[in-house]
């Protein structure tokens, strides 16, 4: 119970203190979501999205491999025949990381150098946001897919060690699990399909909002 108080209560308390301080010292308008969105560079959004994509994908793949690999190793002590066949579970987990790499490469191709005074166009904002949310989508899908395939792979290894007929049946469950990563890949590609590369604005001083210098 104490753990809950500290991990949820303390951040909420601090946020409340900061908010009330701003409110009571007359600078409540400092908290301005619109200004934040407009003055944050699209490169920041794009870079974060690509980083999350590959990072979360690799986390999911690694997690899945650890869960299934330990069971394969242990089961292989008494039933060495399972070790070769069950590598397919590891491959399914690895594929999830490959999806993350593919999306990372596709997204990175949209990053071009643009001087700062020409950067803040609506098209560039859109590309930045699309890359962020696309990357987050793909990363989360791959994380959950990798974990699912890993847990199922562990059960498949232990079932195979006990009775060889069970392996193919549990493999079907794994295949359905790995399809989720593919869904993430497809949606991630769709999300950025209409996002153009970062490109310079037409006019030299295209100031899009009073806040951007």
């Amino acid at each position, binding site marked *: 119970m104490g753990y809950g108080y500290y991990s949820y209560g303390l951040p909420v308390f601090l946020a409340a203190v900061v908010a009330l301080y701003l409110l009571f010292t007359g600078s409540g308008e400092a908290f301005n979501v619109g200004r934040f969105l407009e003055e944050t560079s699209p490169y920041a959004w794009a870079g974060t999205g690509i980083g999350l994509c590959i990072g979360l994908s690799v986390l999911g793949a690694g997690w899945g491999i650890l*869960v299934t690999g*330990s*069971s*394969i*190793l242990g089961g292989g*002590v008494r039933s060495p025949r399972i070790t070769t066949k069950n590598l397919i579970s590891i491959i399914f987990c690895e594929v999830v990381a490959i999806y993350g790499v593919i999306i990372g490469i596709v997204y990175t191709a949209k990053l071009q150098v643009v001087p700062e005074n020409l950067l803040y166009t609506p098209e560039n904002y859109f590309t930045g946001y699309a890359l962020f949310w696309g990357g987050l989508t793909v990363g989360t899908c791959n994380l959950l897919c990798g974990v699912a395939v890993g847990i199922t792979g*562990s059960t498949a290894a*232990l079932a195979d*060690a006990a009775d060889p007929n069970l392996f193919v049946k549990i493999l079907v469950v794994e295949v359905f699990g790995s399809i989720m990563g593919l869904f993430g890949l497809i949606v991630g590609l769709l999300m950025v399909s209409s996002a153009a590369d970062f490109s310079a604005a037409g006019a030299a001083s295209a100031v899009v909002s009073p806040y951007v210098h």
Partner: protein
Amino acid sequence: MEALFFNANTGFLEAIVRGYKAGILTQSQYANLTQCETLEDFRTQLSATDYGNFLANEPLPISTSTIADKATEVLVEQFKYLRTNAVEPLRKFLDYITYGYMIDNVILLITGTLHERDTHELVKRCHPLGVFDSMPVLCVATNVEELYQSVLIETPIAPYFRECLTASDLDDLNIEIIRNTLYKAYLEDFYNFATTLGSPTSEVMHRILAFEADRRTINITINSFGTELSKELRAKLFPAIGRLFPEGNNQLAKADDIDQVRQICENVSEYRSFFSETPAGASSSGDDFGAMAAQLEDHFFQTEVDLNKQAFLQQFQYGVFYSYMKLKEQEIRNLTWIAECIAQDAKDRIQDFIPIF
């Protein structure tokens, strides 16, 4: 949620235990063993199983106690491998499994000392999983207080002695009371520890330990009929866990004969069938009592094996370690029974063991 983090520390060992479990003898292997004519055939048949050549270096003629000892050695080696490779909290869980054997060893040493047996022989007869450092010192004790202060306070089972330090002198009845008090404290402690481990380990272990507690409650009740054990003392030996707790325990503490025990156990549907298969026109005469007690034991063993088998149906929990130990012990009892029947040429009762898989 347990599946996310369990395999990081325990995945390998769980798979090893499931591998051990695959080596438990099946019905077809028991069929081969029961058809052996001599113990040498028995040994040859066993060498084709996971036991391998564990009896290879024994000189002929082999005795059944050697078979039991060597089979227990195989189990002890497996357990030690698991325990050496375990980290917390599995390490503590495996330690809890050994406390049961420690209690048996302590009682064995005290009883042996009372009857003035040789200390070395006693120490050799102790179960290897329940050894602790100061075991031979136990043989010089005369009362429980001294025992506790000098030796037992350093062992992990020290907290269980809190309830029984009042038994000031040791005689046969008191030793049984000490054993049951220790085991009651051990079961309750293990139950609480399993609760801290969280689901699904706690669910699996609660089921198994609750049955163990009920079994001990019923056995203590039946064995105390006709002895000088007072009802208050009997009630204090019942563990405070299980399906019969608290109502059934209260009623069993006041029971006087086995029909009352049967009526009390009717309230629990799983135990109803334990008492129902009596010969036609049964009454509490001596012969029927013996037959019913034997059947009851069989039912208890069968239910224990069933519960332990069910523990393997769930992955990512520690119950498989406990269940494997119990199933292997049952297998060793079975092997000993079959070997005895072969050695004594009593083939008509050779099928009276509890098959596992």
